[in-house]
């Protein structure tokens, strides 16, 4: 089955929804493809339960999400929910697997708004059941209304730490401690950049204050060095870090009892689609890793536009605005908007984007990965969860001459499992850069391979009659 639209949008988060609305408003036909059941993405994820007025009062993200969904519903753009895009080619062709099987899409423009993956640098015990990502914790709390094993230790970097810890308390759980890689001085240094969004700044300060008031210990400038337990989490060892986020040798380590852990070390752009389309990328630690190159109007190549965190971590507020800009640019290039009208509509959008990016980039910079964390990974710690590849195997590959992460993948299967390197990519690349004494630029990024998501073969094949398949004649006996 092939569906034709003027514009295909990959991802129904803030960037994708706003892009779809902007393009649809100019009279174009638009389809949004998303894995979720409703639009919203992760930050504005639709709750899996009935929302009450009290929920809306307590959570500005929920209000924004509901507005996003209402605007989308009234836009006339179509949503292909529970559809997993796994292929895209210039031209433009996209394939997605949905509940009814495979669907091929054709369009004149493609807008990539695939968001971000969470980075989690492994420590011993991170694969224990009961240890979840920090972003996972936000999903569990706000979309599912449930708390992780309690008390929960919340560790990593960035504002999510405080959002998650506060939310655990609100939903009736206990927090063992917050372990923040950043020091108070680093948060203070980020303040000027955060002033551009006083509402978000006030919310963050409110989280910190409520944790202080609840007597939750906050360990700044520290990292988790081990999670222990036989089948479940029992205790977590933490250690102060230096300015590079390396645990300080000889510093006093502290053990904290916990039944669950939420851990995350920042966000990295999910740019697999840009990579299979061969859009050039550059490395930017401050924007989360490898980012596709694009023009200020969000155009990356003929017919392809990119918006939101998959173009570099900028946050949900900036994603919405960049999405609108991408939608307008696609409409202009498809002849639905004159250049003059485009200029008139895009100018205020670009201005507010700059303001939102100032906030987003400040947070992104605070969360950008420092080399000490991955360098400290112990040799027997599993880095690639899918294929059980430990640090020492990566070191051996580097010793054997691997200089690029793709060589590492060929030699060790690191990054070759069902998650396709989304879980281990950042840690593996950091280790390779350290082992080869080079840089993240030098060791590169995995080549993206289709299918970009695991795909049941029967979905791909669909239903067919064997006799209808073109078969070559048998070889002469």
């Amino acid at each position, binding site marked *: 089955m092939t569906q034709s639209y003027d514009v295909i949008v990959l991802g129904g988060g803030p960037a994708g929804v706003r892009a779809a609305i902007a393009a649809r408003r100019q009279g174009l036909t638009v389809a949004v493809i998303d894995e979720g059941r409703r639009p919203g993405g992760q930050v504005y994820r639709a709750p899996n*339960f009935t929302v009450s007025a009290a929920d809306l009062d307590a959570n500005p993200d929920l209000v924004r999400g509901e507005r996003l969904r209402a605007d989308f519903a009234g836009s006339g753009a179509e949503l292909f929910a529970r559809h997993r895009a796994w292929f895209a080619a210039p031209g433009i062709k996209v394939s997605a697997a949905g509940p009814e099987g495979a669907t091929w899409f054709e369009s004149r423009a493609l807008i990539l708004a695939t968001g971000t993956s969470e980075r989690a640098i492994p420590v011993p015990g991170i694969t224990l059941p009961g240890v979840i*990502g920090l*972003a*996972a914790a936000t999903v569990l709390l706000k979309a599912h209304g449930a708390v992780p094993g309690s008390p929960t230790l919340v560790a990593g970097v960035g504002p999510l730490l405080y959002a998650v810890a506060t939310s655990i308390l609100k939903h*009736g759980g206990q927090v063992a401690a917050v372990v923040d890689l950043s020091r108070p001085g680093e948060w203070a240094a980020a303040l000027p950049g955060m002033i551009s969004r006083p509402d978000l700044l006030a919310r963050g300060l409110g989280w910190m204050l409520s944790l202080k008031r609840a007597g939750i210990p906050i360990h700044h400038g520290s990292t988790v060095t081990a999670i222990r337990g036989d089948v479940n989490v029992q205790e977590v060892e933490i250690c102060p870090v230096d300015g590079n986020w390396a645990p300080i040798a000889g510093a006093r380590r502290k053990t904290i009892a916990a039944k669950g852990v939420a851990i995350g070390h920042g966000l990295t752009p999910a740019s697999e689609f840009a990579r299979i389309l061969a859009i050039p990328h550059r490395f930017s630690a401050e924007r989360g890793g490898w980012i596709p190159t694009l023009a200020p109007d969000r155009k990356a190549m003929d017919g392809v536009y990119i918006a939101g965190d998959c173009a570099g971590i900028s946050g949900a507020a900036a994603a919405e605005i960049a999405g609108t800009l991408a939608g307008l640019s696609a409409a202009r290039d498809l002849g639905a908007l004159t250049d003059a009208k485009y200029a008139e509509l895009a100018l205020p959008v670009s201005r507010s984007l700059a303001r939102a990016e100032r906030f987003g980039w400040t947070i992104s910079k605070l969360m950008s990965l420092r080399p000490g964390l991955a360098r400290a990974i112990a040799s027997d710690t599993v880095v690639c969860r*899918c294929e*059980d590849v430990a640090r020492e195997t990566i070191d051996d590959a580097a010793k054997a001459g691997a200089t690029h992460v793709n060589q590492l993948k060929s030699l060790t299967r690191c990054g070759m499992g069902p998650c396709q390197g989304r*879980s281990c990519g950042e840690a593996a690349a950091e280790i390779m850069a350290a082992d080869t004494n080079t840089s993240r630029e030098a060791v590169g990024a995995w080549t993206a391979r289709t299918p970009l998501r695991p795909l*049941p073969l029967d979905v791909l094949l669909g239903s067919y009659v064997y006799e209808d398949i073109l078969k070559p004649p048998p070889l002469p006996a």
Partner: protein
Amino acid sequence: MPEISSPPPEAWRRDPHVARGPLVQILVDGLPLEAHDGEPLIVALGAAGCLAMRRSPKAGTPRGAFCLMGSCQECLVHVDGAPVEACMELVRSGMRVELDRLARDLRKLSER
């Protein structure tokens, strides 16, 4: 499978103030488990203290949900015979969930 009324301390906990679907019964490795209709399967399992979904195929270490958004593949289970991510699948009455089937199938193959 522990009863919902006495979950172990490491179990996830549903916020009692959140309105959920009616209780239905699902089968986890043949044993009945009460869960809310329409909630993510991972919440039903997690709230029962069933945090390990599977074993890693090579080292055989227990694994459970990590990303909760369909990316990491750690919470892969079989529902009515088909592999699904427990974090993306919703509970419906009578669904048959099998944990760690892939590893068991692999073990069976290697024993041949």
